[in-house]
């Protein structure tokens, strides 16, 4: 099921499908987030914004306005 990263729940296992903005996508690749990355939201700030995701042991915080541009799909948890 496709949805935006901004709509995901804390701890939900997800896979990144695509990133809308070329500029932001480049920045994200530099920081380790690529398409097909399996990740999850590890922290959510009190007002729901920003959120933080795990990138292979590296915690990246991004604003909701940025997370809206990232399309993900939910992975079935084992």
């Amino acid at each position, binding site marked *: 099921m496709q949805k935006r990263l901004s709509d995901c729940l804390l701890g939900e296992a997800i896979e990144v499908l695509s990133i809308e903005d*070329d500029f932001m996508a480049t920045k*994200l*690749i530099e920081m380790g987030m690529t398409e097909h990355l399996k990740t999850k939201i590890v922290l959510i*700030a*009190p007002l729901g914004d920003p959120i933080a995701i*795990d990138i292979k042991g590296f*915690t*990246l*915080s991004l604003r909701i306005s*940025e997370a809206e541009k990232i399309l993900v799909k939910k992975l079935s948890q084992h």
Partner: protein
Amino acid sequence: MKIALLGNPNTGKSSLFNLLTGLRQQVGNFPGVTVEKKSGFFTDKNQKFDIVDFPGTYSLDPRSLDEQVVSKVLGDPQNPDYPDLILAVVDASRLENNLFLFTQLYEFNIPMVLVLNMWDVAKKQGIQIDIEKLKQLFPDITIVATNARLGLGKERILNALNAVKKRNGKGFMGVAPSSNKAIDDKIKRQEAKLRKEKIEIVIHETLTKSNTSKQSRLDAFFVHPLWGYLFFLGVLLVMFQFIFSFAAYPMDFIDGSFGKFAHWMSNILPSGVLNDLISEGIIPGIGGVVIFVPQIALLFFFIGILEETGYLSRVVFIMDRIMRPLGLNGKSLVPLMSSLACAIPGVMSARTISNWKERLITILIAPLMSCSARIPVYTLLIALVIPEGYLFGFINIQGIVLFGLYFLGVVGALLTALVLKLLIRSKSKGFMLLELPALKPPRWADVFTSVLEKVKIFIFDAGKIIVAISIVLWFLASYGPGNSINNARENIRKTADYQSADKEEKKNLESSAGLKHSYIGELGQIIEPIIAPLGYDWKIGISLITSFAAREVFVGSLSTIYAVQDEGDEPTKLIDSMRNEKRTDGSPTYSLAAGISLMVFYVFAMQCMSTVAIVKRETQSWKWPLTQFAFMGIMAYAFSWLTYVILT
């Protein structure tokens, strides 16, 4: 040999720099930009190594100022900072992410040493890196493993530096990263993607991971909607307790020592202009710089700990959403809170904000937060015009007024931020992709080095301007047009009051007459028509001008003008003289309206040359401190006038 130290943020790069150079380092800026340049040197086997610690970046793609500096230096062999060797640092526990920058650096045909730092952290996380395999993949560079936090690996690095390998010119992707800014975002994205895919192959061949990492449980606490904010509030309370109360002791000591030193100098030097210049201009001027050192050092000690442990980025995380509507970001909070103690360290600590617009707005509004130098002014004026008493029987009226002044400053700062957000145009896109580094105990040596660094910047960079302005102010207060000061002193000696006064009073009367006829006195009288609508006379005008040295000078200047001894904390005599002061129509000069108007003026006006100097330093131009001086002046004038008109 010139070495460039490069790596991602949070890789322990600075620890490594401190480990190699010790305290033989200096901080400046790269030419033309406000990007911090730390340079230092060390010697090994009779060879001197000059090393520059470049800002931590994730790539060489020149988007941010930091990245532009790095790619500019590496792309230009004529650049004075162009290195003979690149010392690339990666965090071994996050090798995959860190290899992006490393492989970009590898494209340059510059001799290179790769440092796999934080080796023990990686090991603890069950990460195993096949160094032999890495060496095969990158055969023309030296690879060493270190743990700079624990001070391990210096020998290995030095050995590597003494046996530098020649590069074979092949690179990683075979093409240097384009430093061309005009290149299309799509192409850049494609380039980055290809590089990343190749890195994934390298990782697949060299790295094995046995267990999955877990988010620290502390993190859930730090960002908790209730506990997170409460804990942060507690941290702030402790910080301010230290900065307000404990800095007072060394500050009093510094104040006293410089006073004694000035007195001693004036006694041993032959009297004359030189004596006055040294004992009344230069020494108090330097004292006025040094007195801020305890507050600056304490503040940066705490910020250093917060940064080193990684906690500060959690604060940014929980504050960002709240600060954003004002054109600020989560990182603006610490500079603004610090400015309640003193705007100087506050403005300096805004460096952690990477977005230029948000940093600039933070710097511009910081001095509106009421600093500790305003306290003596507030207390004097409150004691003078606000009656003692209680509202509803338990709320202290004078206390409420004091709180109101602080509140006015905070509201003024936030509303100004809102206006500046609309006025200042920004080139950079408002992304905030922020790394939350793993929580760890601070490395004390790094904390102390950063404190020392900040103190040095303040003393040498801002200090020059502060001492220069102090000397100008001293000159203006000690000299007047023609022989006017001497004449005034002569005249006062003839009066009946003077004849009947004791020795101390005679001295006070003379300095009062002198100040009134000095250039500053003249200036006070010239500006009287301008400040009259606010309810001030020329004597207050003089004090406003001298306050520019530091706001608390207001009290001392008034003491001189009213020819009373400056008694420091409880100026009862001064208050009496001020209370008896009458206008030409017989009404009291310090009416309720004039008094409150004056307090409002001190809330908003930029009467602090040290802050002007530090803003100039941090923004690298006179444009912003002057803009700030102007808008704060306009706010002060407008709101004081409004206050005076409403209350009379």
